[in-house]
């Protein structure tokens, strides 16, 4: 994906993508933080 490339999304795809982004970020926040804590405690 380059800054020039245009992306066309239907309303459903738009909503799904938004949910998917939110789910990933929530998982990163909760699971990623635990992983990071583990990393710092171990090393």
């Amino acid at each position: 994906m380059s800054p020039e490339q245009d992306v066309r999304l239907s309303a459903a795809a738009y909503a799904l993508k938004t949910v998917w982004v939110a789910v990933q970020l929530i998982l990163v926040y909760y699971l990623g933080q635990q992983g990071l804590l583990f990393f710092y405690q171990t090393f």
Partner: protein
Amino acid sequence: MNPVDLYSVQFWWFVGIALLVMVPLASAAPKRWAFAGLNVAFLAIHVKPGEPESLLGILSGLVLAWLVLWASSKKSRLGLAAAVLGGLAVLSLFAVHKLPHAAPTYGAARLGTVLSGIGFSYVALRIVDAIRVLREGTHSPPDLPATINYLMPFHMLSAGPIQSYEEFATQPEVPAPLSAARALSAMERVSTGLFKKFVLANYLDRLFLTGFHASGPYFLFEVQINFVWLFLDFSAYSDVAVGLGTLMGIATPENFRQPYLARNVIEFWERWHTSLSRFIRRQLFIPAQLTFMRITDGRFPLLAASVAFTLSFVLCGLWHGISWPWFAWGVVQSAGLIICNIYRAALNRRLGRKGVSRYLANRWIRLAAIFVTFEFAAGALAVATYPYQEVSWWSTQTR
């Protein structure tokens, strides 16, 4: 210098400010200067308190690089001298960067730390690429802000990609306005990158990787997982860089194209760390192959390709790390590429064009080829990253 940490709140605050600055800008010069200012500010933030001379050193280096690039574009002796001296300076700094423990003085050791902080491996290749293109005279030299933006874009600082100077110079000065759909797709790239790094790669590491301390069948299993882990971790940085680049309107090259679907080693390098492999092709493989073909009057094309593969990938291994394991990785990769090239030529000779098409279309052959390529790449990576220093026979031999 502090390393760039994608998990730090500081980094994402900076990204937020960068987007606020970059997205509304619609003309070329303000965009170029604003991005340069952001890149310098990012470097300033990452300099440790009490080490302002590090930032001064980096900024002086950038001004020097700008002068070298400008002078290299001249068709006079000055241009040639600037290109040669610039190349030698990059090589010397690269040696300090890769061999910090061999640095003879405290100053050199600290220089090594600063070079690591700015990801000098990538900066060095960008300088070399720019010097070559400017010597060819196909593009004009960058001005100071463009030099900063090309050499040290903050979103590509931690793990590339290595943008070619040609791509940088030909990108539209003003990108198309950011539509909501493209912004969402770019945010998806960023969130996917974070998910891959901090969830998938992180848990793969926690659950399965032992640093090759296990033996027997588990060792073989770990060779596979180690490779998958590297893909998730490394491609995650590229995802974040491409997503942020799209949001800011800064062309950021793709670095991975489903490398696990590669059916041979040559194709693997067209899919894995593609910005590096394109650099190798431009700067090492093609010049070496052409030189050898010229010397031998084109009588040994397979041998010419083999010599070029060996030279290119041994140097590529040493770029990753100046050590015997990375040298061995380069030898293994070139052996794989040479065998693949010879096999391809033999297939063409034996089966003909139609036969090769049938061969390539066969699903079982394709699956087997993908499997073998995966195993080869995973094995080569294990050769490079195995902790030899912890094995007694290695310590005895290298002491």
